[in-house]
């Protein structure tokens, strides 16, 4: 049931980067002129995309509706779902 350690570690890395992106998004919604925050946001957006592609090659798609590629057969519906991990 428990996913391999590698999977958990990579997931946690993604969660960290994506958390920073959520936090920066809300901050920029009320501070749209902060140039450095926008630079950081764009940098992390690239990093997030790279980490997710890396994760998906090993552990399957993260992003719905074409955000990720599928293997054959269709693997979007493969367990574990987030609450099962």
């Amino acid at each position: 049931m428990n996913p391999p350690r590698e999977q958990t570690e990579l997931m946690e890395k993604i969660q960290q980067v994506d958390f920073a992106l959520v936090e920066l998004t809300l901050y920029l919604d009320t501070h749209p002129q902060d140039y450095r925050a926008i630079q950081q946001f764009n940098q992390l957006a690239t990093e997030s995309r790279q980490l997710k592609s890396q994760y998906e090659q090993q552990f399957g798609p993260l992003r719905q509706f074409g955000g990720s590629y599928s293997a054959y057969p269709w693997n979007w519906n493969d367990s574990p779902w987030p609450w099962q991990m």
Partner: protein
Amino acid sequence: MWTYEKKLQYPVKVSECNPRLARFLIEQYGGADGELSAALRYLNQRYSIPDKVIGLLTDIGTEEFAHLEMIAAMVYKLTKDATPDQLKEAGLGPHYANHDKALFYHDAAGNPWTATYIQAKGDPIADLYEDIAAEEKARATYQWIINMSDDPCLNDSLKFLREREIVHSQRFREAVEILKQERDKKQYF
């Protein structure tokens, strides 16, 4: 539109099966100041709020759905191995009688979720003050649950959620200031 990502916003771990804690956590699932109320409140207010703060309501409302999923994951993990007897002992007998282990949108006392928990006044300042109050109430609820919980793993996730309410409240306060500035600009020029 919305899209789903197959990940939790923040890891959810529990030390052991604990249906008593799950019973309290349901407050943040289908309670008045819970995550469902929050998500629906903000996303619904977007359509009549000034453009300057639509982005904020969209983003916080979306984040609230990620929190709702975290609460669901907590309840799932705390109850999945529980026997009917353990559920009964934890005070979840009435829930089990109706829902087995299915989640349901009700509060810790069993009251079903209702739209009367959320407001949409159409007045931007009134709506944002409501949102600030909602965040403060959610923060307090997380604190009360943490006070009753002896599960350090669960508390880590609950503290994350408590901190998010503080950030949301802060951003809504800034949104109020932005709208007041806009309003004053219009009055003077």
